[in-house]
C-alpha cells in the first residue's frame, strides 16, 4: 500500500474509507472492474481473463487478487465495493453474497443476521472494541 497519513476515520473497524489515497492506488483495478458493466467486455474477459487484464496496468498483487477473486484483498489494494461488485456480478454473485464472502460466513448465516436486524452498532464503532474481544 502507498504511504497514508493518519485519518480521523482510521479507528473505525472492518471498514475501508475510499479516499483519494485509496482511489489513486486502486485506479487501474477499479477501471478494469467498471469495464465489466458492459456485456461485450464481460464476454471478452470470460474468454481469456489474463489477456483482458493485460489492458489494465495494475500491480501484480492487484492482478492476482482479481484472478483469485480475493474480495478482501481487492479492497486492501485500493478497490472500492461499487467497482469490485461489477466483477462479482460478472461471476453471478449478488451484493449480499459478496458481503457474506467478505465477512467470512456462509450465505445463509449472513442472510439470517440481516433478517434479525443486521450487524448491531454496539461494539462496532471503534477498532478498540474489536481488539478487546
Amino acid at each position, binding site marked *: 500500500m502507498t504511504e497514508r497519513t493518519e485519518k480521523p476515520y482510521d479507528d473505525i473497524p472492518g471498514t475501508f474509507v475510499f479516499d483519494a489515497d485509496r482511489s489513486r492506488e486502486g485506479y487501474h483495478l477499479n477501471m478494469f472492474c*467498471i469495464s465489466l458493466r458492459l456485456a461485450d467486455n464481460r464476454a471478452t474477459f470470460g474468454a481469456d481473463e489474463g489477456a483482458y487484464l493485460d489492458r489494465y496496468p495494475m500491480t501484480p498483487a492487484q492482478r492476482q487478487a482479481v484472478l483469485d477473486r480475493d474480495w478482501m484483498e481487492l479492497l486492501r489494494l485500493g478497490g472500492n465495493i461499487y467497482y469490485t461488485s461489477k466483477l462479482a456480478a460478472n461471476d453471478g454473485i449478488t451484493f449480499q453474497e459478496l458481503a457474506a464472502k467478505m465477512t467470512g460466513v456462509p450465505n445463509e448465516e449472513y442472510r439470517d443476521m440481516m433478517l434479525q436486524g443486521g450487524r448491531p452498532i454496539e461494539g462496532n464503532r471503534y477498532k478498540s472494541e474489536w481488539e478487546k474481544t
Partner: protein
Amino acid sequence: MARITAGVGCSHVPAIGVAMDTGITDQPYWKPLFDGFVKSREWMKDNKPDVIFLVYNDHCTAFDASCIPTFALGCAAEFAPADEGWGRRPVPVVKGHQKLASHIAQSVILDEFDLTIMNEMEVDHGLTVPLSVMFGEHGVDDEWPCPVIPLAVNVVQYPAPTGNRCYNLGKAIRRAIDSYPEDLNVVIFGTGGMSHQLQAERAGLINPEWDNRFLDSMANDPEAARQITHLEYLRETGSEGIEMVMWLVMRGALDEKVTEVHRHYHVPASNTAVGHIILENHE
C-alpha cells in the same frame, strides 16, 4: 410559477429493483418492505407531480474513476437506464425536462454552486429504484408518469459534499424553481441510505436508532441534521450510510416547517436498512 410542494426520502437498493423486475414482491422476504409503499403510490397519484427533481448517486456506472463531479445536474432530453453489470433494468427511459433543468443550472451556478452540467448520462438503480417504488411497475415500453431532473452527488469517493452544503444547495434549487415562470408542481426526492455497509468485515451494519432519529430530524429538526459530520455517518451508519447527505438536498428545498404525511422503516433489503418519508410543504 413553479413550486416545490413536497419532498420524498427513499432508499435505493438494487435488490429492490430486482424484486420488482422479477415479480417477487409478494414473497415473505419482500412483502413487508413493499407494504410500506402502498400509501406512497396513492399519494403520488393524488399529488401528480409535473416534474420530479431526483437527488441520487451514481454507483460507478455512468461515472468511472476518471471524472468525479461533486454535483452533476442532468440537462439531457432523456436518460437511459444503465447496465450495471447484471443487465439493463426493464423500465422506461427517463425523460428529462431540459428547460427547467437549464434554468436551475443557470440560477444555481450564479448562486455560487459549482455544478457540472451533464448533457448525456445513463442512470443506474440509484435513480430508477425510487421511481419504481413510488410509481409502481412500469415496463420498458411504458412511460414514467412525469419527467425527471436528475442530480447525481458524489458519495463514493471521500469526501462527499457536507450535509450543510447539500442543505444549502437544496435552498438554491428551491430559489431557482420558485423563479421559473411556468406553473409546475415539482416534487423533490432525496434518495440513498439508510444505515448500510456493503464492504469488508463490518458489512451488514444496521443502526435503527440512529436511522429513526435521522427520520425525525428530517421531519422536525433539519438544522440538527445538516450538522451531522462525515465521521458520524461513517462510524454510526456504515461506510455507505453517508448516502444520507443526499436527503439534505431534498430537505433544504422544503419549508422550515413541514407536515410528515407518511413514514416507513424496514430492515433488511439485502444489506441495507430501508427508510422512507413523505414531507409536504404547507403553503
